[in-house]
């Protein structure tokens, strides 16, 4: 007989505003094997965790159910709490009544409360059948692979080698530096990008721990945290690199307009990066008009690319500082110069005569070529008037967009992307620069458009996180692997074929044949379980009896209504 404790979280207002926590607690008390049901304002707080620990000890609980947010955030925290109270961490079950209940049924508190009750009944049913598990340890290969040799990748790699960790930096093109290679001066301090990049490259080249691979692509990735195998290919030759952690820093690219504002048909209409290259060559035009938000903050690409306003401000200032009589205008739909340094640039630009005009999405500007040069007709919203701007160059500030190979890279590493093709990290606040897949990290503009300082910060963060398993030397493999009940197994071979990792084989023992799972190879997907006709194949933490009991609990608690 299990002794189950159920702890229901208010999560402040997040759950309690919709779900009647008191009623749910009362209901939980009636469930089979439940010894105590209680509630906390914030279960994940010191106080909440402490009260759970005390309750476990006082009530001699041996199965714990917490009904709160999503297990994808705090499961490790609660599992640890159980361990500290002397209960095996796999005797813990998390019921999601926030993301899957209170937050999505805010206008239906009664049905939400009933649903929470059923979800908890299901969780309690499963908890009653949980078994303690022992985790196995796996050693970690003390090598990191950084994919992408731009600023972010260089920063991450330099940080790793500074810690003494062998690092492979893989770059598809023939040079390091990425987009920054095209940008001579970077804001807000107007430093030279070359100095920043040279510094990083020399740190790498000067270290015996770094190996740089140019003109190289990643063609395959297999394994799991601590034990990856990254196959890289260069000029027809391939190499298998064993690694403990992988950092993805593939960056993004500039959106090239498809004819907006005359791009491609009217000479003199160029993108920001094209402008950066001209400025680097010393080409300073006298009259420049910047048009912001070209292809961003509009239907189909709703996001703000965060770096383009600052880039235009920086370049505008470069022009007026080089030639005070220059005529520079920035035609915008909000200037996103966040923070103290960038805001100062905005003021400075305005003080130095840069003209700012606001336009609206419904009435974009129009660029035409006249005898005297380019003319930008813009309806300025602020003064409610049509203005004509004369320019030698029209610079289109376009957003950063994901690279074409982003989805392929995502498939190789089995990591998700959002609808814009940027990589999706595990959790913005609780697990930044990490993927849900352990041991793979994301930083830089591949994650979303980032400024130079943000790229550096993220690269360092990813390197710091990647170094943790490598320094520890071992990782714990979650005990959710599969096994075959040798008495039941009929050796039909369905599981052997179904397993995506070839982790199962039929073995012979005296006169019996049965399936055997190689635990080191098993990734805990459970595919074998569903292919087994007589339920011999089981997955720890997801056994067929456990999941069936959840279905029984749902049926029991649902059929009593309606």
């Amino acid at each position, binding site marked *: 007989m299990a002794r189950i404790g159920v702890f229901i979280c208010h999560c402040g207002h997040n759950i309690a505003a919709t779900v009647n926590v008191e009623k749910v607690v009362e209901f939980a008390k009636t469930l089979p094997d439940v010894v105590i049901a209680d509630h906390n304002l914030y279960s994940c707080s010191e106080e909440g965790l402490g009260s759970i620990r005390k309750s476990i000890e006082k009530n001699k609980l041996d199965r714990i159910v917490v009904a709160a947010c999503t297990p994808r955030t705090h499961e490790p925290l609660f599992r640890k709490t159980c361990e500290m109270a002397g209960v095996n961490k796999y005797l813990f079950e998390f019921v999601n009544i926030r993301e899957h209940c209170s937050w999505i049924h805010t206008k239906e508190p009664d049905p939400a409360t009933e649903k929470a009750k059923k979800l908890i009944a299901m969780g309690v049913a499963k908890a009653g059948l949980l078994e303690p598990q022992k985790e196995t340890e796996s050693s970690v290969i003390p090598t990191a692979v950084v994919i992408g040799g731009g600023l972010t990748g260089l920063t991450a790699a330099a940080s790793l080698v500074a810690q003494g960790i062998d690092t492979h930096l893989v770059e598809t093109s023939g040079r390091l530096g990425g987009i920054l290679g095209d940008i001579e001066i970077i804001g807000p301090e107007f430093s030279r990008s070359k100095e920043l990049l040279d510094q990083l490259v020399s740190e790498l080249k000067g270290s015996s721990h770094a190996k740089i691979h140019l003109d190289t692509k990643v063609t395959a990735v297999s394994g799991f945290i601590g034990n990856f195998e990254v196959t890289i290919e260069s000029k027809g030759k391939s190499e298998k690199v064993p690694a403990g952690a992988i950092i993805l820093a593939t960056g993004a690219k500039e959106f090239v307009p498809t004819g907006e504002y005359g791009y491609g048909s009217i000479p003199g209409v160029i993108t920001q990066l094209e402008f950066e290259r001209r400025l680097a060559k010393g080409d300073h035009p006298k009259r420049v008009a910047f048009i912001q938000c070209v292809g961003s903050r509009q239907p189909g690409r709703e996001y703000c690319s965060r770096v383009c306003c600052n880039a235009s401000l920086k370049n505008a200032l470069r022009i007026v500082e080089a030639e005070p009589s220059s005529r520079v205008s920035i035609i915008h739909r909000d200037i996103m110069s966040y923070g103290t340094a960038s805001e100062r640039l905005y003021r400075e630009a305005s003080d130095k005569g840069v003209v700012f005009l606001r336009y609206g999405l419904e009435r974009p500007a129009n660029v035409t070529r006249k005898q005297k040069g380019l003319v930008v007709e813009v309806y300025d919203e602020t003064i409610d008037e049509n203005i004509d701007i004369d320019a030698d160059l029209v610079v289109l500030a376009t957003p950063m967009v994901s690279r074409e190979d982003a989805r392929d890279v995502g498939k190789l590493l089995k990591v998700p992307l959002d609808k814009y093709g940027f990589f999706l990290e595990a959790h913005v606040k609780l697990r930044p620069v990490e993927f849900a897949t352990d041991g793979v990290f994301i930083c830089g503009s591949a994650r979303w458009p980032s400024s130079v300082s943000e790229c550096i910060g993220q690269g360092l963060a990813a390197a710091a996180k990647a170094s943790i398993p490598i320094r520890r030397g071992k990782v714990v493999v979650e005990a959710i692997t599969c096994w075959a009940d040798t008495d039941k197994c009929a050796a039909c071979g369905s599981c052997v074929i179904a397993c*995506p990792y070839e982790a199962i084989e039929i073995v012979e023992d005296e006169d019996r044949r049965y399936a055997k799972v190689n635990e080191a190879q098993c990734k805990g997907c459970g595919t074998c379980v569903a292919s087994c006709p007589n339920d011999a194949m089981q997955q720890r933490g997801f056994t067929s009896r456990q999941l069936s009991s959840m279905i029984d609990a749902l049926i029991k608690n649902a059929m009593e209504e*309606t």
Partner: protein
Amino acid sequence: MAEFNPTILAFCCNWCSYAGADLAGVGRLQMPPNIHVIRVMCSASVKPEYVLKAISGGVDGVLVLGCHIGDCHYMTGNHRTAKRMPLVQKVLKEVGIDERRLRLDWVSASEGEKFQKVVTEFVGEIKNLGPNPMRGVKW
């Protein structure tokens, strides 16, 4: 007569559809309160027996959600799901239970809106189909 309030079971895979459901929650995307999620590591671990047991027991609808084909965390896990579920639907159909009571769909970790859409659509469809005819059948 009270409006029929379906009881629906959903299996969501940890890496994609469960995360997508979480994202829908984070975005406060509202949807009908009829679905109850069981978390699994991969949609390929959803035993057809669970679906048949649930429907035999009176559950009005079962939703199996996995990663998009090609994006499964376990390589071709979802291929197996894609092969199994249509056959489960045929088993239901032949015995006289509407095969639309089982739905297989793909929701990625970033598709909170798709999760909302699938859930809302499915609940609507089950409402139209009416209560599971196996409810209250005495054996």
